[in-house]
């Protein structure tokens, strides 16, 4: 009985808190000073048309590096836990139908091209390295699921993944020496505002992130799927 009363009191307290938050919530018409600074700075000094990308890659670039590291650790953990045990009998998977196979073969180049478009245009349009990498990984997943005879070259995956991770960190350190600080994008030519080759190192960094995320997610899928 006492337990129920305490539970009821806790729920009432939670409801009061939520009610306070809900009534205090309204559309924000003015930005906080720091957000204002970021929104005006991103197009002018960093040369990026998409303000969110400028914030994610440059102003909060260290957070993005941390996120990529977390994803890498997750992929490595899955690969370690589900590593192939050769004495296990391989379950025979059913082959995809002819329609699925042909469709996957037709769609794979288009999906990969779309993923590359998303991460190379991260500084111009919505999207960026993470989204583009995920799109590429989903295309490869479709291809693997449709055809049993296909498999992924794991050493190629790990080589391109570590090279892009190295390139990302190296560009960050280059910003430390050639521009204002770690992950500063202003050591490459800025180009004209709004064109593909602009915003300094942002498109290069996002391309590295895209390749890295795509390889990591493909690795997660294949290690979960292969030894089922």
């Amino acid at each position, binding site marked *: 009985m006492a337990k129920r009363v305490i539970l009821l009191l806790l729920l009432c307290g939670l409801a009061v808190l939520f009610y306070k938050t809900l009534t205090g919530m309204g559309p924000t018409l003015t930005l906080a000073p720091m957000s204002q600074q970021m929104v005006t700075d991103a197009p002018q000094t960093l040369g990026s048309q*998409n303000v969110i990308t400028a914030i994610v890659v440059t102003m909060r670039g260290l957070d993005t590096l941390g996120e990529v590291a977390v994803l890498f650790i997750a992929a490595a953990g899955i690969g370690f836990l589900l590593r192939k045990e050769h004495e296990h009998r391989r*379950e025979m998977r059913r082959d995809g139908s002819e329609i699925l196979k042909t469709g996957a073969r037709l769609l794979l180049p288009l999906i990969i091209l779309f993923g590359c478009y998303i991460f190379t245009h991260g500084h111009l349009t919505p999207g*960026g390295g*993470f989204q583009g990498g*995920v799109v590429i990984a989903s295309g490869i997943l479709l291809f693997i699921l449709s055809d049993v005879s296909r498999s992924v070259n794991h050493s190629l995956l790990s080589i391109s993944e570590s090279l892009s991770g190295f390139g990302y960190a190296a560009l960050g350190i280059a910003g430390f020496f050639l521009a204002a600080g770690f992950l500063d994008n202003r050591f490459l030519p800025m180009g004209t505002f709004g064109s593909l080759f602009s915003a300094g190192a942002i498109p290069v960094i996002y391309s590295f992130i895209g390749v890295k995320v795509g390889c990591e997610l493909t690795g997660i899928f294949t290690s*979960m799927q292969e030894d089922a």
Partner: protein
Amino acid sequence: MIVLLVLFLGSISLVAALFAIHTKSLLSAVISSGVVSLVASILYIVLHAPDVAMTEAAIGSGLTTVVFLLALRKIRSARKEDHRG
């Protein structure tokens, strides 16, 4: 108009979430939790956050669902081997 759309999408996502909790079949639960993410990504577009919407659609409703399905298949094949051995 936007309020109606948000209410409609919100009710879809509530129904899908409740279905995911109460259904007996694990497969339907995984699929309907993917539906929740898909509706959430449409809501993000309505709220003018296309970057977040892309991430939610690709990771939340695409990849997470596939990872759950693969894990489900792994559990089933492990159970089958237990029965045999």
